[in-house]
């Protein structure tokens, strides 16, 4: 490609536009498959962070997945960015529905103005994408996801693979934008024989809740990217430790010039700023746990904040989702507790024959085990999330869970095959086994002292204790026998330890006992009228006495 015609600033701008266009494309597609209506606000004053002058929210995990898939590259000839949308039933059968492809071809438009025309056309293309994502069959399916099936996404970069769409798939072109380095095309190939899905009635049985909270837990970001070198923005992707949000975000303040067209000035300022974890709850409402499946998509975990975890199930601090996978071979991330993205070794399930596939496609799917989340399951998730909070306080130490997925008839790729074990107890798999709860450690948090009868009594006890815990019953305090130096046991026929134990609980003083106190009080009160009568009788004497004092 001839770069000589393109100024280096233009080239940089163009690369950045393409990169952010790719990221926004993924956001639009994934958000359109969440199953909820999207709503963003128009803003007359430019905020500087809305790429392409469109209010498209950024779900951090989705951006992360996209960046991971792109690995610092841009779409180029033969290297397309693909977003695969698939459907997965509660039985574990899955089916590819759509492949959205962002491709680049060699047809260059040298004359076009990068900072102006290309940018605006990319904006237009995103609008077209917004419109088109609502008109393919998968949209209506995704709006109805929840009980019987969920919609998943997967991003990959490289060759487009359409074989999973079945025969007779259709293609719709979203649009193209010519640039000096090639023509960007955006299209969607979608399966058409979905008719049977919409009229299917599924039985309602307990769902298998695959919960991926955080693929990124404990995944340190090396300071230098291990992947392909970034040749245009070296510092951007690497070195940014990933909490749940972008550390540095390219800010695009669009500034156009209208004075002679040849002088189109497009200023892009890069601002590195910390954005707070975006809680995208105003646009993508996350459902209550009881309706856990309305957001069966990786990106739906919007209240992706540690603070939200452990909160009651009414808060979607713990949404249910299935993650998109990382690469072609592993579309679903399997994470075991305490592992760094490792795949737990499990025996594979026998694959179904192709004939069975055909039959499965056309016949009703019986015996689907699926149901709405039960209260017990939400409790479990609360337990799980609580435990992760106790684990540590860093923002990205969220819960790691296992995503169990049964290989079903529609899967024709060699994916990690996992058995669904112990599914009669939902969440049994998900309870973290390795987490030590600090709360349970008596050395850190001593148990509550028992009720004291008097404060003084309590202090007597605590003075005597030499252990780390506050005064309590002898059960909680273990005194180790030892021979103290220089101690003699001639005065008392016992050693220090015995002595201590002996006199650990002396009887309380009678005057401090409530009963006695109460008794004397009662007596006092009773005798009061009598005493008053006596004093009244002697009032003269008292007066005389008082006078002597004056």
């Amino acid at each position, binding site marked *: 490609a001839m770069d000589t015609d393109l100024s280096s600033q233009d080239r940089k701008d163009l690369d950045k536009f393409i990169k952010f266009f790719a990221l926004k494309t993924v956001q639009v597609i994934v958000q359109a498959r969440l199953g909820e*209506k*999207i*709503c*963003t*606000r*128009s*803003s*007359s*004053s*430019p*905020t500087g962070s*809305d790429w392409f*002058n*469109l*209010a498209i929210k950024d779900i951090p995990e989705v951006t992360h997945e996209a960046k991971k898939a792109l690995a610092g590259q841009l779409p180029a000839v033969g290297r397309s960015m693909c977003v695969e949308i698939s459907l997965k039933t509660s039985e574990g059968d899955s089916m590819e529905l759509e492949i959205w492809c962002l491709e680049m071809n060699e047809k260059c438009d040298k004359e076009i103005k990068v900072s*102006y025309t290309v940018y605006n*056309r990319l904006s*237009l*293309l995103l*609008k*077209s994408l*917004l*419109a*088109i994502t*609502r*008109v*393919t069959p998968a*949209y*209506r399916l995704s*709006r109805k996801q929840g009980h019987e099936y969920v919609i998943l996404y997967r991003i990959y970069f490289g060759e487009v693979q359409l074989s999973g769409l079945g025969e007779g798939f259709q293609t*719709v*072109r*979203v*649009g*193209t934008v010519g640039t000096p380095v090639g023509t960007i095309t955006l299209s969607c190939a979608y399966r058409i024989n979905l008719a049977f899905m919409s009229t299917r009635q599924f039985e309602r049985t307990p769902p298998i809740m695959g919960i991926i909270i955080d693929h990124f837990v404990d995944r340190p970001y090396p300071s230098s990217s291990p992947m392909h070198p970034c040749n245009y923005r070296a510092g951007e992707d690497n070195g940014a430790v990933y909490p749940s949000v972008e550390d540095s975000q390219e800010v695009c*303040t*669009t*500034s*156009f*010039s*209208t*004075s002679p*067209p040849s002088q189109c*000035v497009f*200023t892009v300022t890069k601002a590195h700023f910390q954005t707070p974890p975006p809680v995208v709850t105003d646009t993508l409402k996350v459902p209550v746990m009881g309706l856990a499946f309305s957001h069966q998509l990786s990106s739906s975990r919007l209240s992706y904040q540690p603070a939200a975890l452990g909160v009651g199930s009414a808060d979607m601090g713990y949404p249910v989702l299935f993650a998109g996978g990382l690469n072609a071979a592993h579309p679903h991330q399997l994470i075991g507790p305490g592992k760094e993205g490792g795949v737990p070794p499990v025996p594979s399930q026998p694959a179904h024959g192709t004939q069975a596939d055909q039959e499965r496609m056309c016949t009703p799917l019986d015996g689907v085990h699926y149901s709405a989340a039960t209260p017990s399951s939400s409790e479990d998730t609360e337990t799980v999330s609580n435990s992760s909070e106790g684990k540590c306080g860093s923002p990205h130490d969220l819960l790691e869970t296992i995503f169990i997925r049964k290989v079903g008839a529609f899967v024709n790729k060699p994916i990690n095959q996992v058995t669904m074990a112990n599914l009669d107890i939902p969440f049994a798999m998900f309870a973290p086994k390795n987490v030590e709860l600090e709360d349970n450690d008596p050395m850190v948090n001593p148990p509550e002292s028992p009720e004291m009868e008097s404060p003084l009594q309590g202090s007597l006890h605590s003075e005597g204790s030499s252990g780390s815990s506050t005064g309590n019953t002898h059960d909680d305090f273990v005194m180790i026998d030892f021979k103290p130096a220089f101690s003699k046991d001639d005065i008392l026929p016992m050693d220090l330890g015995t002595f201590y134990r002996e006199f650990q609980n002396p009887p309380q003083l009678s005057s401090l006992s409530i009963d006695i106190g109460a008794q004397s009080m009662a007596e006092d009160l009773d005798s009061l009228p009598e005493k008053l009568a006596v004093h009244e009788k002697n009032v003269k004497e008292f007066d005389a006495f008082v006078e002597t004092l004056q």
Partner: protein
Amino acid sequence: SCALSSRCCAPSSAAPAMNCRAEVLEVSVEGRQVEEAMLAVLHTVLLHRSTGKFHYKKEGTYSIGTVGTQDVDCDFIDFAYVRVSSEELDRALRKAVGEFKDALRGSGSDGMGQISLEFYQKKKSRWPFSDECIPWELWTIKVNVVNLANEQERQICREKVGEKLCEKIINIVEVMNRHEYLPKMPTQSEVDNVFDTSLKDVQPYLYKISYQITDSLGTSVTTTMRRLIKDTLAL
């Protein structure tokens, strides 16, 4: 604001001007589906033909505001579409479509009509000549209202119209993708000749909506009702 200028503007002719791009879409819908179907198409077009608000700064540079979008579900059609997040714009379209629907229902109509969305530029003329309105894109939606006998037919119609509208959206996007003529980005003094700057949150290209109802004899136009909808709303 465009209130005054649209009055000064001479009405565009029935046929599009020579350089004006014209697209025609046809739909057959049930009476109660008319509004939603029209809104879906008009909003989809305007989504592509609206930008953020321009803010002009020194030296002829300008910055552009942000356009938000939202999903709209149809009640009478198995369909959803995306529109620009602007209540003003939505109100304007609803008003126009409402009038069109009423006219379709009115006497003398056998349920056929068309609604047009025209994008134009203003060309200032010297006094005493009024400004010219030069259309550069015209979208016409031809509507045929059908009457259905029973609930089952209505259910089928819901789905079928939904599918048809999906096709229309794809058609619209194809046209938009051609990247054909768009008015040049205007200077501050010219912006009102290209864009409708009266809305507070978005900035569509200058547009007009008009409609025609075909009479029962099916002749092309016996009652021509032209409304400059923006006129009414500009007040």
